[in-house]
């Protein structure tokens, strides 16, 4: 499972970076989205995958039963997803604005428009 998730994360990074290096704004934004998803998956894998007990103290028990899943990476990812979603939505609107102002979504055209 580790290997599979690590590979998926790697593929998302690779695809994201490839798309960021393309010339169209839409592809840039999709690339940024893939990159942030790859990062989220990376945090998930790096935090360790444990499929035994949930990180909840059972009735009557004084402590967690080891081995248990680490809840912190999940909390981190949740935060990162929310922030990433907001930023992606914002950059979509901005790209639309750029397209409306310049009439092209080619990065070179955008650079030339000044």
């Amino acid at each position, binding site marked *: 499972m580790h290997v599979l998730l690590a590979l998926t994360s790697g593929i998302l990074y690779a695809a994201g970076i490839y798309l960021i290096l393309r010339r169209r704004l839409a592809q840039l934004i999709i690339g*940024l989205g893939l*990159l*942030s998803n790859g990062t989220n998956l*990376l945090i998930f894998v790096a935090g360790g995958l444990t499929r035994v007990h949930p990180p909840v103290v059972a009735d009557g028990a004084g402590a967690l039963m080891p081995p248990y899943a680490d809840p912190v990476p999940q909390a981190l990812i949740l935060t990162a997803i929310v922030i990433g979603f*907001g930023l992606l939505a*914002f*950059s979509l609107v*901005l790209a639309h604005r750029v397209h409306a102002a310049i009439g092209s979504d080619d990065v070179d055209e955008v650079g030339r428009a000044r």
Partner: protein
Amino acid sequence: MMALALPLLVPLTTAAVLMLVRRHAVVQRWVAMAGAVLLLGSALLIFVRVNSAGVQALQIGAWPAPFGITLVADLLSAMLVVAVGVVGVAVCGVSFAGVDPRREAAGYHTLLQLLLMGVAGAFLTGDLFNLYVWFELMLVASFVLMALHRTSAQVEAAFKYVAMNLIASSIFLTALGLLYGATGTLNMAHLARVWPAMASSGIEAVVAALLLIAFSIKAGLFPLFFWLPASYPTPPAPIAAAFAGLLTKVGVYALIRVFTLLFQGAPPSLFALLLAMSAATMAVGLVAALAERDVRRVLSFNLVGHVGYTTASLTVMTPAALSGAIFYVLHHILVITNLFLVSGVLLRLRRSTEFWRLGGLRTSQPLFSLLAMIPIFSLAGVPPLSGFVGKLAIVQGMFADGAYGVGALVLVVGLLTLLSMGRTWAEVFWRPHVGTHDLTTPGTPYLAAIAGLNLLTLAMTVGAGPLVDLTARAADQLLRGDEYVRTVLGEE
């Protein structure tokens, strides 16, 4: 110490109140100004406490240190938060001279308060993931402030800025994931404790490189700074002033923090890389500044180049060099904010900051020229102004450690700065000008803000002795690190 939360709560509350009164422009300005003054007051409160009683920490929700989120203020953080307050007051002050009504209705003041909150949070947090969150908060506020425009150059600049910073955030987050995977903690003090055990595991190099890249993009180091001169000259002057004064300094602060806390014993190749990037930043920034013929672009490239001073001192890692770097950062926040406000007056007077549209202001605006002289020549490093003191401290620190090469580069770049600012002075103020006349007056709010920042610059000059003692103590605190770690982890 509960007051540590005030620099975050005050702007947040102010932002909420501003949302309620968004229909009344004048009320908004007064509320924003009151919020900024309170922010400055709470920052001073923290500073006085930290100065007398040492590092202060606040565990949010009373969760003990490595588990919850910690706010920490050592001398560096406390001084920087005071600087945030000063910039906040200056920028809110100039809004009395008038803000574009459409922008004001769209939440200009609210966003500015959120920006101040994000910057203060980044300076105060003791947790790396929390630092990421403050970064994002600050960036979202700056994105929207920048994108409240319609002209194609401005939209284009905003897009570059957004894309570059989103990439930086992804890289930062990747580093955090790996760091958590390796150590199981993101609390900076706790990391400093467990990090030495990881030093030989190879993950150190990866994490260090990723953090270096992410923070270098934010700080605007070569070769990752190209978004900065493209985006900073386009927004209105008060926004550009806040960005220039604060945003890159957050990247610099993050570099100082992680390098002193985690990477003091890192392999020399990491420092060599940072040194090479800093040297290239200084050289490229100032050469580019000399090639520009527009005040705001000249200032942006100066801003880029001068970041190199502080990061180069960081590679020396001696108390003297780091102390000089801290002094220089404080000086630079005041002066570059001031200079962007000066460019705002130029925009009011001539609707442009290009050299060929300016000139002759010495005769047409003598008072404004006099006021503008201080930040221009302070940035240039003319003795006895604060820029000279800061550069002297940096160069002395470098020479004392035997870093003659980089010290010499700092001197050469200092000369280029002098040329660049001297030329700006000559073109904008000194050169006689025939043709267009001044469209309006500089505006009392602008003159007051510039004069206020001038007073602080002069105070830094006159009080350079005590201030250098203070920055030396801050540098000492950073390099020893144990007071910070023990305070956060609650081991007194």
